[in-house]
């Protein structure tokens, strides 16, 4: 486990009688794209909440780059280089697109107790923000209000904000959610590029995208990791097929 950037051990979270995370063991190696899949209600969002510090686990540990971050608040994890994007778009809708990304840059540029200088004229904030916007293909939208962007562009902006903090690892919570076919294809292309530079933990519903991108896949069902391995191994795994097929039988 020496090369694991993110290591999760025995993570357990209970909401009343529901075991949302059941002794989860997971690791993400430096440089890999590790995807997590699972049917609705499998506990994917609960898991990412605990990884980012929005939720506190009942037991278990989360280590990032060897450091125990289980008790760290969300902002401190972000400052360590663990950047996330949100499943449900979470932006500063009343600020401009560039302001959104510049704030993400600012978060990693020391404290913000600077009361006088016009932050919108600071090159140190604006230029890295523009680079991140260009990276996701939103450079020409920089001065629009974030609320004026399309849903697909919001997803791209989410990514730009995650990239702006020069993270060591990206936690992407369903970046493809709600995208059309064209937009999805563009996002897959973008993720494929990002994969070369970043370690990524991807939570995604879109199976085609996951199997096209992932180096490793873990399958989460009822809060438990039932299988973990290469895409080929997962495709062939009996338990996984049962979990998904079983679900379909219940539905039909």
């Amino acid at each position: 486990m020496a090369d694991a950037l993110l290591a999760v051990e025995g993570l357990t979270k209970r909401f009343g009688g529901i075991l949302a995370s059941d002794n989860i063991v997971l690791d993400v190696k430096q440089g890999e794209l590790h995807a997590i899949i699972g049917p609705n209600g499998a506990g994917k969002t609960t898991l990412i909440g605990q990884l980012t510090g929005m939720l506190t686990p009942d037991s278990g540990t989360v280590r990032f780059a060897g450091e125990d971050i289980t008790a760290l608040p969300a902002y401190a994890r972000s400052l360590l280089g663990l950047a996330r994007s949100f499943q449900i778009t979470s932006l500063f809708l009343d600020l401009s697109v560039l302001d959104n990304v510049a704030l993400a840059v600012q978060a990693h540029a020391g404290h913000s107790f600077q009361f006088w200088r016009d932050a919108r004229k600071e090159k140190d904030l604006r230029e890295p923000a523009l680079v991140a916007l260009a990276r996701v293909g939103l450079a020409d939208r920089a001065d629009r209000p974030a609320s004026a962007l399309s849903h697909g562009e919001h997803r791209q902006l989410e990514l730009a904000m995650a990239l702006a903090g020069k993270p060591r690892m990206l936690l992407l919570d369903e970046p493809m959610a709600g995208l059309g076919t064209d937009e999805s294809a563009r996002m897959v292309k973008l993720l494929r590029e990002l994969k070369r530079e970043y370690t990524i933990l991807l939570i995604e519903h879109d199976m085609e995208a996951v199997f096209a991108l992932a180096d490793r896949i873990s399958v989460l069902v009822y809060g438990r990791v039932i299988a973990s391995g290469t895409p080929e191994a997962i495709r062939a795994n009996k338990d996984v097929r049962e979990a998904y097929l079983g679900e379909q039988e219940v539905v039909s």
Partner: protein
Amino acid sequence: MPALNTRNIVIGLTILGLLLVPAYALVVGNTFILTLFTRIVILAIAATSLNLIMGYGGMVSFGHAAYLGIGGYVFGILSFEGIRSGFIQWPLALIISALFALVIGALSLRTRGVYFIMITLAFAQMVYYVGVSLSRYGADDGLTIHRRSDFGGLINLSNKTVFYYLCLALLLGTVYLVWRLVNSRFGMVVQGARSNINRMRAIGFPSYRYQLTCFVIAGTICGLAGILLANFTDFISPAVMHWTRSGDLIVMVVLGGMGTTFGPLIGTVAFLLLEEALPFVMAKTIDPLFPGVRPSEYWQIVLGPLLLFVVLFARGGIDGFLRGDRDG
């Protein structure tokens, strides 16, 4: 050079008008107008400070008038106890306002939304009742202050014109300060926290300490307005901290335009002028139609719907209306 649109013209004329008030009072030989506008200018400082936390920071404080009272009481009590120097009174009043804001903010900011509104109201009510219980300093009846702050030969606060211009200078200084603040890195964090506090945490901001700092700055500025108000009226009583006064401040900010540079100033001028003018105008126009009833005594009946109208149809307040907000 700012563009010549309706909004900037109105702002420019308002400031020009404020600058000329003493000259006008001199020409017509009527000091009432100077008295009225001194009050307007002082309350505009309070409204501008409230706008910093409410308009830009999204922290709707329903207890902002408490700082008017705290600033005023510290000044009044020091004066009563024989400490007349403004060089002692003012810094001490500001520091104590800041300390109150620090404690109130530190606790209130652990809540959000309606709870934040209610807890700031509760704290203001506590401060109000402390004022009521200060029997040595007049309790309910308030404390008459016999001497205004003494700044040696530097400035004479007893001169009405000098006092007015001091207040106006402090108002314009406050507007400038708030403008610089909200556009700085600090201001971006405060605005980000208004917009989406969860996202702020996710991108790495410990928002609480920035919001608290903002809350303290606003409380301190409002404490300054309190010092001015008590100097102006030569009087301080718990009434300035009554919750309805906090409500008035909110109305001034909303009426003028939340989260805008000059909105609170315009809102305060509009609100207090309406308060003065409505009974007068109604007495001239409507009262003769209803002999024996005198509707002008119930001028709030007209003010209420008027404010409602602004809130419903000019969402950005007067500022938004002047800017021509179509989505408002």
